[in-house]
């Protein structure tokens, strides 16, 4: 059901991991729906995204879109990163099955959430960036057993 590109990014996800003391971290989605993405950005003084890492709990499409999204923003300016829409992520992956389109939206939101975090930490305003609506920190605690 997935394209070769999706399977490739699922099997060999790029940029998995964390960045310590990241410039910005964004987490979106919720465990109830089965998808959570967290993106870490390392942004330098010139506003270039020097490094990016992700962690994702989710299906094959969720992992692949996270991976592709990190590839698309790496080395870019903040403004360029804002142009990485869910459509761009999907196109780069040669498409997604209709039921999985929401996964690509999550990738876009995760980048925006990380940029928002960066802007807040630095007390700046990023042109064209709105406060992300989707953040798991507002969700209830995980239950364990």
């Amino acid at each position, binding site marked *: 059901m997935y394209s070769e590109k999706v*399977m490739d990014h*699922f*099997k060999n*996800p790029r940029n*998995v991991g*964390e960045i310590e003391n990241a410039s910005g971290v964004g*987490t979106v989605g919720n*465990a*109830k*729906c*089965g*998808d*959570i*993405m*967290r993106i870490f950005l390392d942004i330098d003084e010139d506003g270039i995204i020097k490094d990016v890492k992700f*962690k*994702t*709990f*989710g*299906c*094959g*499409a*969720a*992992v692949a879109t996270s991976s592709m999204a990190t590839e698309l923003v790496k080395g870019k300016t903040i403004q360029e990163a804002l142009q990485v829409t869910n459509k761009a992520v999907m196109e780069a992956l040669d498409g997604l099955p209709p*039921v*999985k389109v929401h996964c690509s939206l999550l990738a876009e939101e995760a980048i925006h959430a990380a940029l928002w975090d960066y802007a807040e930490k630095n007390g700046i305003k990023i042109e064209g960036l709105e406060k992300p609506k989707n953040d798991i920190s507002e969700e209830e605690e*995980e*239950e*364990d*057993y």
Partner: protein
Amino acid sequence: MKKMIYLDNAATTRTAPEVVEAMLPYFTEYYGNASTVYEFGAKSKEAISKARETIANSLGAKENEIYFTAGGSEADNWALKAAAEAYKGKGKHIITSKIEHHAILHTCQWLEKNGFEVTYLDVDEFGVVKLEELKKAIRPDTILISIMFANNEIGTIEPVKEIGAIAKEHGVLFHTDAVQAFCQVPINVDELNIDMLSASGHKLNGPKGIGFLYIRKGVKIRSFLHGGAQERKRRAGTENVPGIVGFGKAVELAIASMEDRSEKEQKLRNYLMERVLKEIPFTRINGDRTNRLPNNVNICFQFVEGESLLIMLDMKGICGSSGSACTSGSLDPSHVLLAIGLPHEIAHGSLRLTLGADTTKEDIDDTVDAIKEIVTQLREMSPLYEDYMKKNH
């Protein structure tokens, strides 16, 4: 090709070679229509009655109580819709459970849209229907209780005998979807007071697209498919003779091997569960630990999503299934896992493995090793695991 380990026998099974062999002549040699007068057609008729006899005997039923259908879904639809139609004079209330197969649940929803009232019984944390709730749910206008014999996801076997007794005491019809249980556990329709029972060929090493509905003599339900006089005028359509023959053969084989097979499967199944619980942290077994189908394992791995797990298992040649939303085609995880009280995020991380007669210990060891590796890998990638570890260390 890489070796495949098939652990999805609850989805479907390999058609046994003996079954295929028994079927073949009914495609190529004895292709006559069973409804014809000439000798040639009688060959088909005889084969159908032999299969019917085998199946009736396996349930302690009479031959004229077995009606062949095109599978389990049709048998479920027929039982519910036709009983509703036949007994609506008495009342319009039906009782079922929250963990039924969609062939039952979606039929019930359709009936609700058509003037019937349906009570969906809760189950306990192991997936067992609550008998007290059942008793309380019965009303003067209740016409049918439909509770599955065993659940297809978590393998829990329902207290069918008790349900049958309750139904009988209250003069309510009792239907059971035995698609997963038939030929896995012994069933006698008289001892269990079952009025109707659905079963399907492809779950027991028989062919796909063939099933039956057992209808106790005296139960009023009528035809579901109108047309010719086949199946005592209750199910029209030229018989699927090769399918029926194959189903009969599969039942013959499965009944003969049932005891040994379930003992072997149970041993391997328990070994699998023990290894997983011992070697992989944050793991739970779903369903009743002892009162379950011998070949079923259902496990939740916390912080892991089921579809990812399945794809990675597939990459290692292992076939399983999951109740995660992503595999159900909706945004919600399996209704069965939610009904036993699992939170959404844990239900998303479920894995069902269902063993078959050919499953070996080596298969199980390879599978557990693969699961261990994959779960570790996925947890390393999981923000939920990260949060949990940070909070607790």
